[in-house]
């Protein structure tokens, strides 16, 4: 039974991986892009929103990781990081954006709302990553030694904790950025189709793919965009993993 399950599961996974690779390479090399700049526009939108959301969430996330007890808040942070990003996006779209529109006239479909929703939902995952980065072995002893030497908390923060954990912090931020780049439901819920007249890659895939002719130029462009988006996020994840590994090595030394 186990062998059958294993062979079946591995076969399914392999089939999916091969189909992704085949379709992606087919799309990349077999035909030209139907509309020049279209894929770049989609990717640009994804990166712009992902960057904006990750940057906006950074201050709160780093503050939370620095000034809370990881033993006490760890499970809460981990739990909250599992919350789908569509939750803050839905609240923004249904409650805050209409409320602020009636109050100060900010349009409900403003791209800023998408960035805000991404940032709101991105605090917990970044916080989690930063907490892991700051949980360096030996950092507690360094802090005690620094306090004994009369160094103030601010000095410990800027002179010891942040420099020691900088690679892990960057890795946590990169993971959040990668997650934001591929986020689709936030844009669909908050912006409803357009961000400043430009679609993100995920948005384009969800809206256009069902309408695209199988094997047509738009269909191929969408597959190229999917491949680029997937590759981009894999690269970010691997970069984050490399940074994590280098931080672990530095901590051991």
């Amino acid at each position, binding site marked *: 039974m186990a062998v059958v*399950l*294993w062979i079946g*599961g591995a076969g*399914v996974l392999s089939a*999916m991986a091969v189909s*992704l690779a085949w*379709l992606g390479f087919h799309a990349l090399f077999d035909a030209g892009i139907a509309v020049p700049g279209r894929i770049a526009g989609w990717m640009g939108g994804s990166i712009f929103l992902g960057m904006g959301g990750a940057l906006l969430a950074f201050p*709160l996330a780093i*503050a*939370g990781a620095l*000034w*809370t*007890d*990881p*033993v006490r*808040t*760890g*499970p*809460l942070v981990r*739990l*909250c990081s*599992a*919350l*789908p990003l*569509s*939750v803050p996006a*839905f609240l923004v*779209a*249904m*409650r805050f954006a209409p409320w602020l529109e009636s109050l100060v006239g900010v349009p409900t479909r403003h791209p800023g709302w998408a960035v805000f929703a991404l940032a*709101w*939902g991105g605090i*917990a995952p970044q916080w989690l990553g930063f907490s*892991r980065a*700051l949980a360096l072995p030996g*950092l507690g002893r360094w802090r005690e030694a620094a306090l004994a030497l009369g160094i103030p908390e601010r000095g410990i923060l800027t002179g010891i*904790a942040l420099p020691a954990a900088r690679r892990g912090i960057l890795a946590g931020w990169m993971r959040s950025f990668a997650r934001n780049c*591929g*986020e*689709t*439901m936030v844009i669909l*819920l908050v912006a*409803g189709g357009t961000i400043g007249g430009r679609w993100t890659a*995920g948005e384009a*895939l*969800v809206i256009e*793919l*069902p309408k695209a002719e199988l094997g047509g130029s738009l*269909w191929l462009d*969408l*597959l190229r965009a999917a*491949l680029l*988006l*997937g590759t981009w*996020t*894999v*690269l970010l*994840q*691997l970069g984050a*993993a490399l940074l994590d590994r280098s931080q672990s090595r530095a901590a051991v030394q």
Partner: protein
Amino acid sequence: MIDPRFPLGRILAFVLPLPALLLAVFTLRANHVASPAIFVDPAGDSILALPLAPAPGDTGGIGRFLDADGLPVRIAQRAVAVPAPSTWILWRDDAPLSMGRLSGVLVDAGDTLRGERAREALRRMPAPLSRDEHRLVERLRTARDRRDSALALDALERFLSRQRTVVALLQAPGRAIHEVPLVRIRHVEVFEGGWADGVMASARRLWFRMVSTADAGSGGGLWGALVATALVVLLAGAMGGVPSLFLAVHLADQIDPGPAVRWLRWASEGISGVPGVVWGCVGAAGLAYFGDSSWGHEAMGMVPGKGILWAGLALGVLSAPITFTRAMDAIDRVPRSSREIARSCGATRHQVLLWVVIPACRRGLVGAWFAGLARAAGETAPLLLVGAVGSIEIGWHQAGSMPSLSGEFLHLGAMAYEQPWPSVQAHLGHPLAYLALALVAAGCLALEWAALRLGEVRE
């Protein structure tokens, strides 16, 4: 980290669960029973609340007709988003609507009106309240003020005894004719109107919306979407999670992991970040080739790239790296020395695996499986590409039935996305959208909590 006693940390810790808390509050508010109200129990086990005060835009008071769920029905033609002029929409103040081509109207158990007579019969219904109905409203209000359930029931029974049983026959495009019974009522209970009663009424209404299995075509709650969503997540766990666990356990057999194992862990970490929409794209586009081929279409009888099966596959691939990574982490926590001791005592590799490694990390392995499920449960975008729908036109026909493996299917996340926008009336779609998203969020949090508890991965 620096000083846990710093007050900013405590404030920030409250920021984290804020989206979940706000969603819970707004869901309760959107589904709150307007006071005063009466409870109607149409089938003896599902109690609903009908507000006596008119709903926004409602000219019919308590609702002129009650459908099979005991909900007030109003009838409209040429409403928003009607696909064809001949399409009729029956909508209720408190529940989903039913839509289709009017095939006829059954009056007085058997007398069927067709064509223009049927349309005329339905058109006459939304007229202003009759004298009988005015009297009914007054008596119900009196019963509410006196807290007298018997009086309310008597008033309704008298009223209904004078009413004709009307069944509208609707035919959605490409579907069989279905009946929408408009009058059926069994039990009435006066809503006391107090705070605690309001909470109980809201809870009962929330529960009803989750478990409502109305007749096909006559609307219903979220049960169909709930079942389909759970099915997709379980399929993902079976197709992606189980093979990942087997792979992780198989690799745990090796005491010294070689470069291939390191590479696999490295790759799974990279792949775990691939957005769900990319996997949905693979499921929709890649498998559409398979489904579109004559073999796939004829032999399997599947709609190309659409259906719960494909959705489970897409989410399975999405969640597989997460399950694998967490499972490897759990296996890594098993002390290497215990494996070495077992081997030195003469145990074979398989015996070490079965008697030492798996028993030591079985909770972690189950936790890893739950973590993969949690990720799959929170995904919506990839499912929109493989047939997940939340719109009334397609979705409500499956509201009370088991979803099919092939073709479009209802999904809670898709309902949260689609319900608020094309809905003909905001007070129809918004409560369901809030509830659908709250269920998704609760499912994700529960699965992640289980993963945390079982995996004992405490930060």
